[in-house]
Protein backbone atom coordinates (compact mmCIF):
# COMPACT_ATOMS: atom_id res chain seq x y z
CA UNK A 1 0.00 0.00 0.00
CA UNK A 2 2.93 2.23 0.58
CA UNK A 3 4.52 2.29 -2.85
CA UNK A 4 3.46 5.06 -5.14
CA UNK A 5 1.97 2.90 -7.84
CA UNK A 6 -0.24 1.06 -5.37
CA UNK A 7 -1.79 4.18 -3.90
CA UNK A 8 -5.12 4.55 -5.63
CA UNK A 9 -5.53 7.70 -7.63
CA UNK A 10 -8.96 6.92 -8.99
CA UNK A 11 -11.57 5.20 -6.94
CA UNK A 12 -13.08 2.15 -8.52
CA UNK A 13 -16.45 0.77 -7.63
CA UNK A 14 -15.90 -2.91 -7.15
CA UNK A 15 -18.41 -5.63 -6.64
CA UNK A 16 -18.57 -6.69 -3.05
CA UNK A 17 -17.97 -10.40 -2.59
CA UNK A 18 -21.41 -11.73 -1.89
CA UNK A 19 -21.97 -13.77 1.20
CA UNK A 20 -18.50 -13.02 2.57
CA UNK A 21 -19.48 -12.96 6.19
CA UNK A 22 -22.48 -15.19 5.79
CA UNK A 23 -24.59 -13.13 8.11
CA UNK A 24 -26.68 -10.80 5.96
CA UNK A 25 -27.48 -8.55 8.88
CA UNK A 26 -23.80 -8.13 9.76
CA UNK A 27 -22.97 -7.25 6.18
CA UNK A 28 -25.71 -4.68 6.03
CA UNK A 29 -24.48 -3.24 9.28
CA UNK A 30 -20.91 -3.09 7.99
CA UNK A 31 -21.98 -1.34 4.84
CA UNK A 32 -24.07 1.07 6.81
CA UNK A 33 -21.09 1.85 9.03
CA UNK A 34 -18.84 2.37 6.03
CA UNK A 35 -21.42 4.62 4.43
CA UNK A 36 -21.85 6.67 7.60
CA UNK A 37 -18.10 6.85 8.07
CA UNK A 38 -17.54 8.09 4.53
CA UNK A 39 -20.12 10.84 5.01
CA UNK A 40 -18.74 12.32 8.20
CA UNK A 41 -15.09 13.00 7.73
CA UNK A 42 -13.37 15.22 10.21
CA UNK A 43 -10.26 16.67 8.75
CA UNK A 44 -7.16 17.81 10.52
CA UNK A 45 -5.22 19.97 8.13
CA UNK A 46 -1.57 20.10 8.95
CA UNK A 47 -0.73 23.11 6.88
CA UNK A 48 2.96 22.80 6.20
CA UNK A 49 3.43 24.64 2.95
CA UNK A 50 1.85 26.66 0.21
CA UNK A 51 -1.03 24.23 -0.39
CA UNK A 52 -2.72 25.46 2.75
CA UNK A 53 -3.80 28.56 0.89
CA UNK A 54 -6.19 26.51 -1.23
CA UNK A 55 -7.99 25.12 1.78
CA UNK A 56 -9.86 28.19 3.05
CA UNK A 57 -11.79 28.56 -0.24
CA UNK A 58 -12.35 24.81 -0.34
CA UNK A 59 -13.75 24.85 3.17
CA UNK A 60 -15.74 28.04 3.15
CA UNK A 61 -18.73 29.15 1.16
CA UNK A 62 -17.10 29.31 -2.27
CA UNK A 63 -16.55 25.59 -2.70
CA UNK A 64 -18.11 24.44 0.56
CA UNK A 65 -16.56 21.14 1.50
CA UNK A 66 -19.01 20.74 4.32
CA UNK A 67 -21.89 19.86 1.99
CA UNK A 68 -19.98 16.63 1.34
CA UNK A 69 -19.69 15.94 5.05
CA UNK A 70 -16.08 17.02 5.41
CA UNK A 71 -15.34 19.47 8.16
CA UNK A 72 -12.22 20.76 9.82
CA UNK A 73 -11.50 19.44 13.26
CA UNK A 74 -9.37 21.04 15.90
CA UNK A 75 -7.61 18.15 17.55
CA UNK A 76 -5.99 15.01 16.15
CA UNK A 77 -7.83 12.80 18.62
CA UNK A 78 -11.16 13.69 17.05
CA UNK A 79 -10.04 13.72 13.44
CA UNK A 80 -10.29 11.11 10.69
CA UNK A 81 -8.22 12.65 7.93
CA UNK A 82 -4.76 14.07 8.25
CA UNK A 83 -4.22 16.50 5.42
CA UNK A 84 -0.59 17.37 4.79
CA UNK A 85 -0.54 20.34 2.50
CA UNK A 86 2.90 20.91 1.12
CA UNK A 87 6.57 20.37 1.71
CA UNK A 88 7.51 18.73 4.95
CA UNK A 89 10.77 19.59 6.63
CA UNK A 90 12.46 16.95 8.72
CA UNK A 91 11.57 18.89 11.82
CA UNK A 92 7.91 19.11 10.83
CA UNK A 93 7.86 15.42 9.92
CA UNK A 94 8.40 14.57 13.58
CA UNK A 95 5.35 16.57 14.55
CA UNK A 96 3.29 15.03 11.77
CA UNK A 97 4.14 11.54 12.96
CA UNK A 98 3.26 12.48 16.54
CA UNK A 99 -0.01 13.93 15.29
CA UNK A 100 -0.79 10.88 13.18
CA UNK A 101 -0.16 8.48 16.01
CA UNK A 102 -2.52 10.41 18.26
CA UNK A 103 -5.40 9.98 15.85
CA UNK A 104 -7.96 7.27 16.38
CA UNK A 105 -8.31 4.49 13.87
CA UNK A 106 -9.57 4.35 11.20
CA UNK A 107 -7.50 7.27 9.99
CA UNK A 108 -6.55 8.45 6.56
CA UNK A 109 -3.64 10.52 5.29
CA UNK A 110 -3.87 12.74 2.24
CA UNK A 111 -0.80 14.34 0.75
CA UNK A 112 -1.59 17.51 -1.15
CA UNK A 113 0.85 19.17 -3.59
CA UNK A 114 3.81 17.78 -5.44
CA UNK A 115 6.11 18.29 -2.48
CA UNK A 116 4.56 15.49 -0.49
CA UNK A 117 5.00 13.13 -3.44
CA UNK A 118 8.72 13.54 -4.00
CA UNK A 119 9.87 16.85 -2.58
CA UNK A 120 8.54 18.90 -5.48
CA UNK A 121 10.46 22.05 -6.18
CA UNK A 122 12.25 21.71 -2.83
CA UNK A 123 13.77 18.35 -3.72
CA UNK A 124 17.33 19.68 -3.47
CA UNK A 125 16.88 20.98 0.04
CA UNK A 126 18.75 19.25 2.83
CA UNK A 127 15.90 20.09 5.20
CA UNK A 128 12.84 18.58 3.53
CA UNK A 129 11.65 15.01 3.82
CA UNK A 130 10.97 13.84 0.29
CA UNK A 131 8.40 11.06 0.24
CA UNK A 132 5.58 11.29 2.70
CA UNK A 133 4.67 7.65 2.19
CA UNK A 134 8.06 6.60 3.52
CA UNK A 135 7.10 7.80 6.96
CA UNK A 136 3.33 7.45 7.02
CA UNK A 137 0.85 5.32 5.09
CA UNK A 138 -0.69 7.68 2.55
CA UNK A 139 -4.20 6.99 1.30
CA UNK A 140 -4.34 9.55 -1.44
CA UNK A 141 -2.05 11.96 -3.17
CA UNK A 142 -3.49 15.06 -4.76
CA UNK A 143 -0.75 16.24 -7.06
CA UNK A 144 -0.41 19.77 -8.32
CA UNK A 145 1.51 22.86 -7.49
CA UNK A 146 -0.82 23.81 -5.97
CA UNK A 147 -4.00 21.78 -6.62
CA UNK A 148 -7.09 23.93 -7.02
CA UNK A 149 -9.96 23.57 -4.55
CA UNK A 150 -11.82 21.55 -7.20
CA UNK A 151 -8.95 19.06 -7.25
CA UNK A 152 -8.86 18.93 -3.46
CA UNK A 153 -12.58 18.24 -3.33
CA UNK A 154 -12.26 15.66 -6.11
CA UNK A 155 -9.54 13.90 -4.16
CA UNK A 156 -11.60 13.95 -1.00
CA UNK A 157 -14.59 12.54 -2.87
CA UNK A 158 -12.41 9.72 -4.11
CA UNK A 159 -11.26 9.06 -0.60
CA UNK A 160 -14.90 8.97 0.49
CA UNK A 161 -15.66 6.44 -2.23
CA UNK A 162 -12.69 4.35 -1.09
CA UNK A 163 -13.85 4.51 2.51
CA UNK A 164 -17.33 3.51 1.49
CA UNK A 165 -16.11 0.54 -0.50
CA UNK A 166 -13.70 -0.44 2.27
CA UNK A 167 -10.57 0.08 0.21
CA UNK A 168 -9.04 2.90 2.19
CA UNK A 169 -7.33 0.87 4.84
CA UNK A 170 -3.77 1.98 4.69
CA UNK A 171 -3.92 2.81 8.40
CA UNK A 172 -3.76 -0.95 8.92
CA UNK A 173 -0.59 -0.94 6.89
CA UNK A 174 1.09 1.25 9.52
CA UNK A 175 0.57 -1.48 12.09
CA UNK A 176 1.26 -4.38 9.80
CA UNK A 177 4.50 -2.95 8.41
CA UNK A 178 5.55 -0.75 11.31
CA UNK A 179 9.16 -1.86 11.00
CA UNK A 180 9.36 -0.41 7.48
CA UNK A 181 8.01 2.97 8.55
CA UNK A 182 10.09 3.03 11.68
CA UNK A 183 13.20 2.30 9.61
CA UNK A 184 12.67 5.44 7.55
CA UNK A 185 11.81 7.47 10.62
CA UNK A 186 14.97 6.34 12.35
CA UNK A 187 16.96 7.15 9.27
CA UNK A 188 15.69 10.72 9.35
CA UNK A 189 15.62 11.40 13.08
CA UNK A 190 18.35 9.19 14.45
CA UNK A 191 18.36 5.94 16.38
CA UNK A 192 16.92 7.44 19.53
CA UNK A 193 13.64 8.33 17.85
CA UNK A 194 10.68 7.41 19.99
CA UNK A 195 7.05 8.50 20.06
CA UNK A 196 4.75 8.51 23.09
CA UNK A 197 2.46 6.04 21.33
CA UNK A 198 3.21 2.36 21.68
CA UNK A 199 2.38 1.33 18.13
CA UNK A 200 3.31 -2.31 18.66
CA UNK A 201 0.94 -2.66 21.61
CA UNK A 202 -1.77 -0.97 19.58
CA UNK A 203 -1.19 -3.40 16.74
CA UNK A 204 -1.67 -6.29 19.18
CA UNK A 205 -4.77 -4.66 20.59
CA UNK A 206 -6.39 -4.12 17.20
CA UNK A 207 -5.44 -7.59 16.04
CA UNK A 208 -3.40 -6.11 13.23
CA UNK A 209 -0.12 -7.71 14.13
CA UNK A 210 1.61 -8.62 10.91
CA UNK A 211 4.82 -10.48 10.10
CA UNK A 212 6.56 -7.15 9.38
CA UNK A 213 5.36 -5.34 12.48
CA UNK A 214 8.48 -6.34 14.33
CA UNK A 215 11.96 -6.28 12.89
CA UNK A 216 15.45 -5.03 13.47
CA UNK A 217 14.31 -1.43 13.74
CA UNK A 218 11.68 -2.10 16.36
CA UNK A 219 14.35 -4.07 18.23
CA UNK A 220 16.51 -0.94 18.08
CA UNK A 221 13.58 1.09 19.34
CA UNK A 222 13.10 -1.21 22.30
CA UNK A 223 16.77 -0.94 23.13
CA UNK A 224 16.63 2.86 23.28
CA UNK A 225 13.13 3.23 24.59
CA UNK A 226 12.72 5.41 27.64
CA UNK A 227 9.56 4.77 29.65
CA UNK A 228 7.22 7.69 29.49
CA UNK A 229 7.07 9.91 32.54
CA UNK A 230 3.85 11.59 33.60
CA UNK A 231 4.01 15.33 33.13
CA UNK A 232 4.62 17.22 36.30
CA UNK A 233 1.70 19.48 37.17
CA UNK A 234 2.56 22.67 38.89
CA UNK A 235 0.55 25.65 40.00
CA UNK A 236 2.23 29.02 39.74
CA UNK A 237 5.79 29.68 38.83
CA UNK A 238 8.46 28.03 40.83
CA UNK A 239 11.53 29.72 39.48
CA UNK A 240 14.05 27.35 40.95
CA UNK A 241 12.33 24.36 39.42
CA UNK A 242 11.82 26.14 36.13
CA UNK A 243 15.53 26.68 35.89
Amino acid at each position, binding site marked *: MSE*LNTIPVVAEETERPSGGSGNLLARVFDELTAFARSRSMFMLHYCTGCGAIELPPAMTSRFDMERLGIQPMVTPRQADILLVTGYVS*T*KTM*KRIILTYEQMNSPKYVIGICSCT*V*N*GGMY*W*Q*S*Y*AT*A*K*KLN*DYLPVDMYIAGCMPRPEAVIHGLRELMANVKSGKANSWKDYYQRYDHYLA*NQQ*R*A*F*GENWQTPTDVIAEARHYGLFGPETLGEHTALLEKHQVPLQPLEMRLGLNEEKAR
Partner: protein
Amino acid sequence: MKLTRPTQDQVTTGLEYLLQQISGMKTRWDGPRRLRVDLASESLPALLELLKGRAGYVHLSAISCVDWPDQNEFELVYHLWSYEMNVLIMAHIRIAREPGVYVSVYDLYHPAAFFERDIHEMFGVFFEGSPDMGKFILTEWDGPPPMRKEFDGEAWVMEHFNWQDYQPDWLTDIEAQGGGITTRPEELRHRNKTK
Protein backbone atom coordinates in the same frame (compact mmCIF):
# COMPACT_ATOMS: atom_id res chain seq x y z
CA MET B 1 14.56 75.36 23.62
CA LYS B 2 13.00 73.98 20.52
CA LEU B 3 14.47 70.68 19.36
CA THR B 4 14.91 70.33 15.63
CA ARG B 5 15.99 67.43 13.54
CA PRO B 6 19.60 67.64 12.33
CA THR B 7 19.91 68.39 8.68
CA GLN B 8 21.42 65.91 6.29
CA ASP B 9 24.69 67.83 6.19
CA GLN B 10 24.92 67.92 9.93
CA VAL B 11 24.35 64.15 10.12
CA THR B 12 26.93 63.42 7.46
CA THR B 13 29.62 65.61 8.89
CA GLY B 14 28.81 64.55 12.44
CA LEU B 15 29.05 60.87 11.64
CA GLU B 16 32.23 61.28 9.68
CA TYR B 17 33.77 63.27 12.50
CA LEU B 18 32.77 60.56 14.94
CA LEU B 19 34.13 57.76 12.81
CA GLN B 20 37.53 59.44 12.53
CA GLN B 21 38.20 58.21 16.01
CA ILE B 22 38.59 54.67 14.74
CA SER B 23 41.71 54.12 12.71
CA GLY B 24 42.10 52.00 9.62
CA MET B 25 38.52 52.30 8.50
CA LYS B 26 37.00 52.90 5.10
CA THR B 27 33.63 54.61 4.78
CA ARG B 28 31.45 54.87 1.73
CA TRP B 29 28.07 56.49 1.37
CA ASP B 30 25.84 54.11 -0.61
CA GLY B 31 23.02 56.62 -0.45
CA PRO B 32 21.99 59.63 1.59
CA ARG B 33 20.95 57.35 4.43
CA ARG B 34 23.19 54.34 3.95
CA LEU B 35 26.76 54.31 5.18
CA ARG B 36 29.01 51.37 4.53
CA VAL B 37 31.95 50.93 6.87
CA ASP B 38 34.78 48.46 6.33
CA LEU B 39 37.05 47.92 9.27
CA ALA B 40 39.36 45.46 10.96
CA SER B 41 37.65 42.87 13.10
CA GLU B 42 39.47 44.06 16.26
CA SER B 43 37.94 47.54 16.02
CA LEU B 44 34.31 46.49 15.62
CA PRO B 45 33.40 46.40 19.35
CA ALA B 46 34.93 49.87 19.72
CA LEU B 47 32.91 51.12 16.76
CA LEU B 48 29.68 49.69 18.12
CA GLU B 49 30.37 51.19 21.53
CA LEU B 50 31.08 54.55 19.97
CA LEU B 51 27.99 54.53 17.80
CA LYS B 52 25.77 53.35 20.62
CA GLY B 53 27.11 55.86 23.10
CA ARG B 54 27.57 58.93 20.92
CA ALA B 55 25.19 58.65 17.98
CA GLY B 56 22.17 56.85 19.40
CA TYR B 57 22.67 53.60 17.46
CA VAL B 58 20.50 51.51 19.74
CA HIS B 59 19.06 49.17 17.14
CA LEU B 60 21.05 46.23 15.79
CA SER B 61 18.73 45.12 13.00
CA ALA B 62 20.69 42.12 11.82
CA ILE B 63 24.00 40.39 11.62
CA SER B 64 24.56 38.69 8.34
CA CYS B 65 27.32 36.39 7.27
CA VAL B 66 28.88 35.86 3.86
CA ASP B 67 31.17 32.98 3.05
CA TRP B 68 34.17 33.76 0.84
CA PRO B 69 35.85 30.39 0.29
CA ASP B 70 38.39 31.76 -2.21
CA GLN B 71 39.78 34.27 0.26
CA ASN B 72 39.25 31.75 3.07
CA GLU B 73 37.28 34.31 5.04
CA PHE B 74 33.88 34.95 6.51
CA GLU B 75 32.41 38.40 6.17
CA LEU B 76 30.20 39.57 9.02
CA VAL B 77 27.92 42.53 8.42
CA TYR B 78 26.40 44.40 11.35
CA HIS B 79 23.39 46.47 10.36
CA LEU B 80 22.79 49.32 12.77
CA TRP B 81 20.09 51.92 12.92
CA SER B 82 19.75 55.12 14.87
CA TYR B 83 16.41 56.76 15.44
CA GLU B 84 18.08 60.15 15.84
CA MET B 85 20.41 60.02 12.87
CA ASN B 86 18.08 58.04 10.61
CA VAL B 87 21.10 56.60 8.86
CA LEU B 88 21.73 52.90 8.37
CA ILE B 89 25.30 51.88 9.10
CA MET B 90 26.55 48.59 7.72
CA ALA B 91 29.78 47.57 9.40
CA HIS B 92 31.67 44.95 7.39
CA ILE B 93 34.42 42.90 8.95
CA ARG B 94 36.33 39.88 7.73
CA ILE B 95 37.38 37.02 9.94
CA ALA B 96 39.46 33.97 9.12
CA ARG B 97 37.44 30.97 8.02
CA GLU B 98 39.51 28.71 10.21
CA PRO B 99 38.93 28.51 13.14
CA GLY B 100 36.00 30.89 12.51
CA VAL B 101 35.80 32.41 15.97
CA TYR B 102 34.69 35.92 16.75
CA VAL B 103 33.66 37.84 19.83
CA SER B 104 30.00 38.25 20.70
CA VAL B 105 28.42 41.69 20.92
CA TYR B 106 25.71 40.41 23.24
CA ASP B 107 26.87 42.75 26.01
CA LEU B 108 26.16 45.76 23.79
CA TYR B 109 23.10 44.49 21.92
CA HIS B 110 21.04 41.69 23.42
CA PRO B 111 19.30 40.77 20.13
CA ALA B 112 22.73 39.74 18.90
CA ALA B 113 22.26 36.45 20.75
CA PHE B 114 19.60 35.47 18.25
CA PHE B 115 21.62 36.40 15.15
CA GLU B 116 24.82 34.85 16.47
CA ARG B 117 23.12 31.58 17.27
CA ASP B 118 21.67 31.51 13.78
CA ILE B 119 25.04 32.22 12.15
CA HIS B 120 26.67 29.61 14.33
CA GLU B 121 24.18 27.03 13.13
CA MET B 122 24.27 27.95 9.46
CA PHE B 123 27.96 28.82 9.01
CA GLY B 124 29.70 27.32 12.01
CA VAL B 125 31.13 30.62 13.25
CA PHE B 126 31.60 30.49 17.00
CA PHE B 127 30.91 33.66 18.98
CA GLU B 128 32.78 33.86 22.25
CA GLY B 129 30.61 35.18 25.04
CA SER B 130 27.30 34.58 23.33
CA PRO B 131 24.81 33.22 25.86
CA ASP B 132 23.69 30.18 23.87
CA MET B 133 25.39 28.52 20.94
CA GLY B 134 23.10 25.49 20.96
CA LYS B 135 20.95 24.17 18.16
CA PHE B 136 18.38 26.64 17.02
CA ILE B 137 16.26 25.98 13.95
CA LEU B 138 17.84 22.81 12.60
CA THR B 139 17.21 20.73 15.68
CA GLU B 140 17.44 17.45 13.76
CA TRP B 141 20.59 18.41 11.92
CA ASP B 142 23.86 16.61 12.50
CA GLY B 143 25.65 17.41 9.26
CA PRO B 144 28.05 20.24 8.43
CA PRO B 145 26.82 23.86 8.61
CA PRO B 146 24.59 23.94 5.55
CA MET B 147 25.12 27.49 4.33
CA ARG B 148 28.85 27.19 3.84
CA LYS B 149 29.75 27.27 0.18
CA GLU B 150 31.43 23.88 0.20
CA PHE B 151 28.26 22.18 1.40
CA ASP B 152 26.67 20.40 -1.54
CA GLY B 153 22.98 20.22 -0.73
CA GLU B 154 22.12 18.06 -3.69
CA ALA B 155 24.77 15.47 -2.89
CA TRP B 156 23.48 15.42 0.68
CA VAL B 157 19.94 14.83 -0.54
CA MET B 158 21.07 12.03 -2.83
CA GLU B 159 22.89 10.37 0.02
CA HIS B 160 20.39 10.80 2.81
CA PHE B 161 16.93 10.52 1.28
CA ASN B 162 15.04 7.92 -0.62
CA TRP B 163 14.13 8.95 -4.06
CA GLN B 164 10.82 8.70 -5.80
CA ASP B 165 11.10 7.32 -9.30
CA TYR B 166 8.53 9.02 -11.37
CA GLN B 167 8.08 7.33 -14.72
CA PRO B 168 4.46 7.83 -15.66
CA ASP B 169 2.97 6.17 -18.72
CA TRP B 170 2.16 9.43 -20.41
CA LEU B 171 5.81 10.41 -20.29
CA THR B 172 7.00 7.20 -21.95
CA ASP B 173 4.43 7.78 -24.67
CA ILE B 174 5.78 11.26 -25.29
CA GLU B 175 9.36 10.04 -25.17
CA ALA B 176 8.56 7.37 -27.77
CA GLN B 177 7.64 10.22 -30.10
CA GLY B 178 10.95 11.95 -29.50
CA GLY B 179 9.79 14.41 -26.85
CA GLY B 180 9.96 14.41 -23.08
CA ILE B 181 12.00 16.14 -20.42
CA THR B 182 14.70 18.17 -22.17
CA THR B 183 17.10 18.52 -19.27
CA ARG B 184 17.17 15.85 -16.62
CA PRO B 185 18.12 16.94 -13.08
CA GLU B 186 21.41 15.03 -13.15
CA GLU B 187 22.43 16.75 -16.40
CA LEU B 188 21.58 20.13 -14.94
CA ARG B 189 23.69 19.28 -11.94
CA HIS B 190 26.60 18.33 -14.14
CA ARG B 191 26.26 21.57 -16.07
CA ASN B 192 26.29 23.62 -12.89
CA LYS B 193 29.35 21.77 -11.64
CA THR B 194 31.45 22.37 -14.76
CA LYS B 195 30.52 26.03 -14.96
